[in-house]
């Protein structure tokens, strides 16, 4: 009688030996987060990714599951991020005529805006007394995760702190783009998408695809170009 009960209690630990539990929890939280999001009337300030992440963190903590064990199982999903990044090349191609029409503004805006995205944060953090390690973790905050990991390691920052900053940046960038668009009276999907991808990497790009395929394509472009540009420039600038 006590045997099966103790086996039941240790079930989260036993099951997390296989990635199925972590994957199941992630899928469950993803759908639950989206359902809650629709139920509470799609508020802009609380995107589904945050709802899902909070739910997932709560369930993982309640099950007494080790975060490392969860991460190992969920790694199977993270592997798909590579092919998914490649998939962004397809809307990019399909929207090429829009991009061609705007290549000049893109070329002018990108280096300035991508540099500013890092510099603003670095100057604020530095003036408030952040350590070099924290600065190195914040610098790639607008860059898509796979590239940002490489940059942070190169600069000597902390990857978990960087991932946290990345998420917060993605969410607030999504919010601020929606707010600022109304404020500056900008309704051009191409500009909104570009700003979403440039500042809010994958989170912003996911939001841009909700606006329209054109916005999504420009977000993919902004995300990709920012990633490439920042990866090349930041290590040079940071050591100055």
């Amino acid at each position, binding site marked *: 009688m006590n045997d099966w009960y103790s086996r039941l209690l240790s079930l989260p630990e036993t099951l997390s030996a296989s990635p199925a539990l*972590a994957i199941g929890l992630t899928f469950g939280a*993803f759908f639950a987060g989206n359902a809650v999001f629709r139920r509470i009337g799609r508020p802009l300030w609380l995107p589904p990714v945050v709802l899902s992440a909070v739910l997932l963190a709560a369930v993982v903590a309640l099950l007494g599951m080790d975060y490392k064990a969860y991460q190992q199982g969920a790694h199977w999903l993270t592997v798909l991020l590579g*092919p998914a990044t490649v998939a962004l090349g397809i809307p*990019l191609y*399909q929207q090429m005529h829009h991009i061609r029409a705007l290549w*000049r503004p893109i070329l002018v805006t990108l280096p300035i805006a991508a540099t500013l995205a890092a510099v603003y944060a670095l100057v604020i953090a530095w003036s408030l007394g952040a350590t070099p390690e924290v600065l190195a973790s914040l610098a790639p905050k607008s860059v898509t995760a796979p590239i940002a990991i490489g940059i942070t390691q190169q600069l000597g920052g902390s990857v978990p702190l960087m991932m946290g900053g990345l998420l917060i940046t993605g969410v*607030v960038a999504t919010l601020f783009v929606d707010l600022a668009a109304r404020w500056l009276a900008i309704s051009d999907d191409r500009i909104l998408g570009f700003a979403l991808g440039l500042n809010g990497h994958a989170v912003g790009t996911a939001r841009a695809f909700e606006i329209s395929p054109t916005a999504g394509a420009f977000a993919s472009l902004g995300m990709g170009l920012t990633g490439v540009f920042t990866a090349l420039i930041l290590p040079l600038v940071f050591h100055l």
Partner: protein
Amino acid sequence: MLRGFLVLVLFFLLGEALQKVFLIPVSGGVLGMMLMTLTLMFKGGISDDLASASQGLISVLVLLIMPGVVGVFFTADQFAGQWLAVAAALLGGTFLSVLSTLWLMSRVVRLGGGKGE
């Protein structure tokens, strides 16, 4: 759709291989994305398989970044002591950079760079 998925994985592997061999400071995924766009532009068309596979993956992008996102809640103590600097940098910095991007881009577009809707 699986055929399309295979193409995506192959381009990703190609990007990874290029990155590892030539030590390019850009991730394999982004290299693969650029190769994919260039290939499609060269070919001038896209198969239904590839279109549906990419659409499927893009629609679950949020799902794929969630495991990394959840880490924030379990590494929150790393922010300890510096949380004010971190929060101010993330919120203030992102706010300023979003405004700059939108303002700059709409300005340049209006100056005549972006003809043709």
